[in-house]
């Protein structure tokens, strides 16, 4: 374990509005394409996890990234969403993909 930070500090709390960064890197990416650039609300703070995007390359994935369950309104995510305006989707997103909204 390297000296210094093993986990990044949690920046967000339940209820916070967050935006998924509109980034398109190559590699093993765990933020689904459909959610990038969209704004939702943190539902749950799931605790720090080693970054799977780094684990995929057999690196340590440290510092661990806080993971969040973020809820989005379907009508915000999809043009012409055909269901009920109350419908939602929830995705787990690692902190390095999130910005305050």
């Amino acid at each position, binding site marked *: 374990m390297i000296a210094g930070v093993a986990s990044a500090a949690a920046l967000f709390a339940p209820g916070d509005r967050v935006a998924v960064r509109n980034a398109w890197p190559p590699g093993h990416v*765990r933020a689904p394409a459909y959610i990038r650039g969209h704004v939702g609300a943190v539902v749950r703070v799931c605790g720090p996890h080693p970054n799977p995007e780094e684990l995929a390359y057999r690196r340590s994935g440290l510092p661990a990234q806080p993971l969040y369950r973020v809820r989005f309104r379907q009508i915000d995510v999809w043009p012409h969403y055909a269901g*009920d305006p109350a419908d939602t*989707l929830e995705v787990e997103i690692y902190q390095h993909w999130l910005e305050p909204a």
Partner: protein
Amino acid sequence: MSHGHEHRHHDHPHEGVIAAPDGPLTHYQVMEVALRELLIEKGVFTPEDVRREVEAMEGRDAGRGPRMVARAWLDPADKQRLLTNANEAAAELGFEAGPFRILVMENTPAVHNLIVCTLCSCYPRMLLGLPPAWYKSLSYRSRAIREPRAVLAEFGAVLPDGVEVRVHDSTADMRYMVLPMRPAGTDGWSEEALAELITRDSLIGVAPAAEPA
């Protein structure tokens, strides 16, 4: 010896690998046998290890999830435990829930939950066994997140008015299971009888629990 049957007491590494009726062994079937034999030769695991894992996964079919849900329907304390710490609830029933945290989403008159993994096909395998092929299909993975009501309709699920459909995309290390609503007309039912109503599809969220006959 018939190669079409699973004679597990014979130590034949190729058992069960048969040519398809309409063609030769595929490249990937050959690869599976070859990789397994190499790894056995290198001492990574034994044939018995492989057999044991195959049998363990077969034993994990949908019996576990329904039992956990039936108990939750019968006892508020069990329900609370299922919703807050499903891994512990599984352990109490003697099930190994696996290394990942299992989160149970409760269906209510206000919210119907549906599970998908758009990026791959993550599924609570340790509780429910191997996922159905349709869950892993591109069609389900593409559409369940975007048009859940259409997918639910394809599965014959009829949702009451005013319910919010909430789709969970399991993109990280948590695994999801739905706690379906208990059907009416089941007062006084035993855990075993209730478990029969809890289909695997209802635990994924594409259907409600079955109705009493």
